[in-house]
């Protein structure tokens, strides 16, 4: 990856806790809306899966406070690996790759984070056997990866690059309402899912949003009002 030498691509030291706690709050708040989407266009268990994951996360964080970025994101990974269905293990593997962006005691820089997101996309596609356009979490992740890579290559500052990635993820998640599922539980309901956003893609939009919030000096809260 080529970068403008003048641009600082380092990310905040507290990226791990800032990202995980922002995402924890966003997912807890969005669980009812995500569950509602899944009831309309899936098998209806995604809201419960999110709640189970967040309960697992609270237990992971309680048993031992993570020491670094890798520890925090690994706690999120284990939280999702402890959830059933298909989305649990797939999100678990995604966060596992995201955790690998930094070594022990470090926070990643923007390039490493972008590469980790890309690895996370690859692992979801490997185990989920989903392509872009199949109405899954991949649909929001793939354009975010592209946007982040392009912004980083253009020498944009981390906050700006992640804001672009978040926008791309949200737009793509909205776009899943017009897609017909081939993978995921929504594949069983086919055309009746039309007009309903895919909850996995929406959750992925929150993930990228939480990264943006964690990187911005005053990122505020993760936007979730677009999920409906």
């Amino acid at each position, binding site marked *: 990856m080529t970068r403008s030498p003048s641009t600082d691509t380092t990310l905040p030291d507290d990226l791990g806790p800032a990202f995980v706690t922002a995402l924890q709050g966003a997912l807890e708040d969005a669980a009812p809306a995500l569950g509602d989407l899944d009831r309309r266009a899936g098998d209806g268990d995604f809201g419960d899966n999110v709640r189970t994951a967040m309960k697992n996360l609270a237990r992971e964080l309680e048993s031992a406070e993570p020491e670094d970025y890798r520890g925090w994101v690994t706690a999120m990974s*284990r939280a999702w*690996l*402890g*959830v*059933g*269905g*298909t989305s*649990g*293990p797939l999100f*678990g*593997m995604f966060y*596992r790759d995201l955790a690998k962006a930094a070594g022990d005691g470090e926070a990643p820089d923007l390039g490493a984070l972008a590469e980790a997101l890309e690895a996370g996309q690859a692992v979801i596609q490997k*185990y989920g056997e989903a392509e872009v356009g199949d109405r899954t979490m991949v649909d929001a992740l793939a354009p975010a990866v592209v946007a982040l890579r392009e912004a980083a290559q253009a020498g944009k500052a981390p906050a700006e690059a992640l804001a672009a990635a978040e926008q791309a993820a949200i737009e793509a998640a909205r776009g899943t309402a017009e897609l017909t599922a081939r993978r995921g539980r929504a594949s069983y309901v086919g055309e009746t899912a039309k007009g309903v956003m895919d909850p996995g893609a929406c959750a992925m939009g929150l993930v990228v949003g939480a990264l943006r919030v964690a990187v911005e000096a005053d990122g505020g809260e993760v936007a979730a009002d677009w999920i409906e």
Partner: protein
Amino acid sequence: MRRSIVNDPDQLVPEALEGFVLSHPGRLALDAEHRFVRRAEPARDKVGLVSGGGSGHEPLHAGFVGPGMLDVAVAGAVFASPTALQVLEATKAADSGRGVVQIVKNYTGDVLNFRIAGEISGDDEVETEIVLVDDDLATDTADGGGPGRRGTAATVIVEKICGAAAEEGQDLAAVADLGRRVAASARTMSLALAAGTHPGDEEPQFSLGDDEVELGVGIHGERAARRVPFTTADGLTDLLLDPLLEELDLSRGDELLAIVNGLGGTYPLELNLVARRLHRRLADAGMSVGRSLVGSYVTSLDMHGVSLTLMPLDAELTRLWDAPVATPALSW
């Protein structure tokens, strides 16, 4: 309606595991958090064996934990895969430094969670091999598309043969190869006279007329592709045996391992009628039942039905089958 012996349906599995382990003091131990049963005295310096899957198939899998068979069995909810995290912790618990064979019945959720747990356990330097059991002849599709044959009662044979091989010190690759050889050569056919009922539910998973038999059922109460007329025990046995004999490439003089398996709501007397017909038919064809199990080993809640599993024996498989085993559900 059917009533169940249950407290809170959500707590059925953990409460059952607790009762099971309490009933085998000194032999089994429970990890309540990750819902797996392991040997009370972990084996040392041998290939570990872990299996698991949804509950509702008892005595599979926890009933086969002990010397000569599994090290650890991990339990999901009724008919639902254990989570990747459960499988990961169970796999680590099965490792004594020589790697772990994961025995997995071929269902999408089980395969996904075991594969992922296998990959992650590499982070802790636990080497793993997956043996996929896919013996159900009824889901054998010629085009090879879709999820493939389901895993059913041949799982018991895989667990026993791999268990014996691991116990005598064979390495990870050799134990996994044996398991795959068993899975490739064993086939099962099943039928049901009545579906099972989920604990807490009032209605069975499907209903049949008095003159109907569901032929080609799996072990999750799913409907089968065919519904055939009800008939005698000998006739029902032939419904299972004929397709198996056609599928397996057998010749006169062959010796077979057979499992006549009750699906949870079948009386032992009924199973013995199936065994009788099996012995007679094979004898007429110049073949023999060299080894067999007759009982309920891989169940589908309280389904009233029977499955028949056949596998050709050779000297090596016979020796490993005969090796000592000491588990709650299988012991000699």
